[in-house]
């Protein structure tokens, strides 16, 4: 699986306006709705589900990245986006450090394999020091989209 199979380039937010976790989740889900990737009417429910998921255990897995994700009946096709915060956001991360890069993933229910494959490719890239560094430094939507393309091409 490749990142561009589910990351919606139009929905990338190069500079999150939100300064807290819940605000960042809402901003990214709204961006997906604006890009037409999910229904506008699903935004509130999906954001609530993501917040609940974070409360059960932070998806801030350390090293400045978080991967909030949820399976939701109002999501008909797996979609994702990326948000970047220059100042960092408190995600209650495992290492207690701020999060600078957020990869958000929304999956339909009953497709666990697809979800695991997407998480696999997201974390395979996030494990790479250079990928995390470039992602944190990419200040425009295009720069982030280009970085994801390069990752998909194995550069």
């Amino acid at each position, binding site marked *: 699986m490749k990142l561009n199979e589910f990351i919606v380039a139009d929905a990338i937010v190069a500079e999150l306006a939100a300064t807290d976790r819940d605000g960042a989740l809402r901003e990214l889900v709204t961006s997906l709705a604006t890009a037409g990737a999910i229904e506008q009417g699903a935004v509130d429910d999906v954001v609530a589900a993501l917040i609940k998921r974070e409360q*059960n*255990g932070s*998806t801030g*897995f*350390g090293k400045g990245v978080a*991967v909030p*994700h949820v399976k939701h009946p109002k999501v008909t096709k797996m979609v994702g986006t990326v948000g970047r915060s220059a100042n960092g956001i408190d995600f209650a991360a*495992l290492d207690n450090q701020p999060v600078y890069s957020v990869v958000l993933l929304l999956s339909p229910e009953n497709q*666990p*394999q697809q*979800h*695991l*494959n997407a*998480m*696999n490719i997201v*974390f*395979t890239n*996030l*494990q790479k020091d250079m990928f995390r560094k470039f992602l944190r430094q990419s200040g425009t939507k295009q720069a982030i989209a280009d970085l994801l393309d390069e990752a998909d091409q194995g550069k």
Partner: protein
Amino acid sequence: MPNASKDIVVSNKLGLHARPAMQFVDVANGFASEIKVLKFGDEPGEADGKSVMQMIILAATEGTPMRIEADGDDADAAVKALAELFESKFGEEE
């Protein structure tokens, strides 16, 4: 150093997604032993059982055969506790 291992199969429907991976790492961190997790099958892999990211990258689906290996003074207890997580389907209903 004593070591122990056990073969298990992923039995929960959702597979080894983020929550079970974190639960596994939490339990693994309670032991001094080094923990290694091997994934068999078409796309074999290996993870440090104390790294959430590495565990998620395994992307082990329901039915995937795996092996838990521990190396250290508390290896037996670690393998037992970690295998029980899989056997209990990580607390998931199916």
